[in-house]
């Protein structure tokens, strides 16, 4: 690993100033499970690493009193799934947080880092899409919000420009009769990168028989995680049954545009996009019905 300077500022404005230091390349550090490996193994160069874990905005994790929750970008997966109150409201997020890496990784890796690493196969992102999350971005010149489905632009590239960081994730309150789920396919039981993944959420009618609204996010089947808007548009108002799930799968397959690589062939990923859409929608519906 090449030499770099390390800073761990304890206020956001100092961090943003450091990140914008002229003529220096800076890398923000959260859990380090991607960054430290990239610095060591891929020859990634940087002049300074800015550790964000002393910043209250990045480590906050709290309910906004009926208006949803805020998760700081550096909060590790285990802190997220250990919060019982949160877990009962955001099941899709919990599914994803519980299957990223092993315990050692979950104790460090953050959803913010997963987003900023912008892997097409990131497990957190389809779940965040299903839960309609908004990203809070800050730089020295101000703040802005980005919908999570628009955050990644291409493999390894996000909407963040020089000097900007992802501060936190805003999760809208989950309505009544809401359910969500995330699943991925891997050839092992644990500790692997998704061949394909899907996150789904639904809001059901009062009798639990009709889908009032739904969202499906796909992972590892395109250069970035995808929101399949056509599923939301075409299938709202449909019955909770296997025909609806199959229609969703068919639409999902039509949006999958994967590559073939060591993890899977393109045709397999297209197939998996359908299967995982079907399964996660079904689980999301079952979870919503269980809460009726």
């Amino acid at each position, binding site marked *: 690993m090449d030499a770099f300077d390390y800073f*761990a500022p304890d206020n956001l404005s100092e961090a943003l100033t450091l990140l914008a230091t002229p003529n220096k390349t800076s890398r923000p550090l959260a859990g*380090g499970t991607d960054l430290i*490996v990239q610095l060591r193994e891929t020859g990634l160069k940087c002049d300074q690493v800015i550790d964000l874990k002393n910043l209250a905005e990045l480590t906050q994790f709290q309910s906004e009193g009926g208006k949803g929750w805020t998760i700081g970008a550096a909060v590790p997966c285990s802190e997220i799934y250990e919060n019982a109150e949160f877990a009962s409201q955001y099941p899709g997020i919990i599914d994803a947080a519980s299957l990223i890496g092993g*315990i050692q990784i979950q*104790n460090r890796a953050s959803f913010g880092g997963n987003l900023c690493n912008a892997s097409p196969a990131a497990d957190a992102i389809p779940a965040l899409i299903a839960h309609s999350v908004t990203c809070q971005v800050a730089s020295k010149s101000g703040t802005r919000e980005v919908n999570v489905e628009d955050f990644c632009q291409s493999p390894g590239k996000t909407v963040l420009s020089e000097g900007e960081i992802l501060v936190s994730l805003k999760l809208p309150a989950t309505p009544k009769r809401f359910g969500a789920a995330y699943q991925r396919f891997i050839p092992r039981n*644990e500790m692997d990168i998704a061949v394909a993944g899907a996150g789904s959420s639904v809001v059901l009618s009062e009798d639990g028989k009709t889908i009032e609204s739904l969202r499906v996010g796909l992972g590892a089947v395109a250069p970035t995680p995808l929101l399949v808007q056509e599923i939301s548009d075409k299938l709202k108002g449909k019955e909770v049954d296997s025909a609806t799930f199959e229609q969703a799968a068919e639409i999902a397959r039509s949006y999958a545009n994967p590559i073939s690589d060591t993890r899977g062939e393109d045709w397999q990923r297209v197939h998996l996009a359908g299967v995982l859409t079907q399964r996660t929608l079904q689980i999301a519906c079952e979870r919503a019905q269980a809460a009726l």
Partner: protein
Amino acid sequence: MKTYLKTTINGEDKELLCEPRQSLLDVLRDELELTGTKEGCNNGNCGACNIMLDGRLVNSCMVLALEAQGKQVETIEGVADTEGLHPLQEVFLEEAALQCGICTPGFILSAKSLLEKNPNPTEDDVRLWLAGNLCRCTGYDKIVRAVLESAKRLSESPQSEVAS
């Protein structure tokens, strides 16, 4: 540029100078000569370098040493006390839950953190928790059985260290 680091390792305050690019694993082994923590893959897959950082199990190869500033670090050297080996260490020896031994410190730390959270794990709980620890010798069975046996012994002696 060397930077001042103050951290607590196995209950003892340590002050030293280290480079920002040094991992906590590098500093433990090369600067503090705590070589019980092993380097396996050095990229977060194998768990041989597992330590506890402020009470959470982490891969020390993926932590910069300076991130341990002001924090509590527990390594394999801190697991046994003056009374003797930790029950997990005893059972690993009795049940021969190791062959070459490189993965063992990581497995002990990982299993210890499991038993602190879940004193009565099922076999599935143990296998899931240990998914981030790789062993290329044993085939895992003996390790899993040793952890289950340790849990049994610890739950039969409520005054044990893990319970505290």
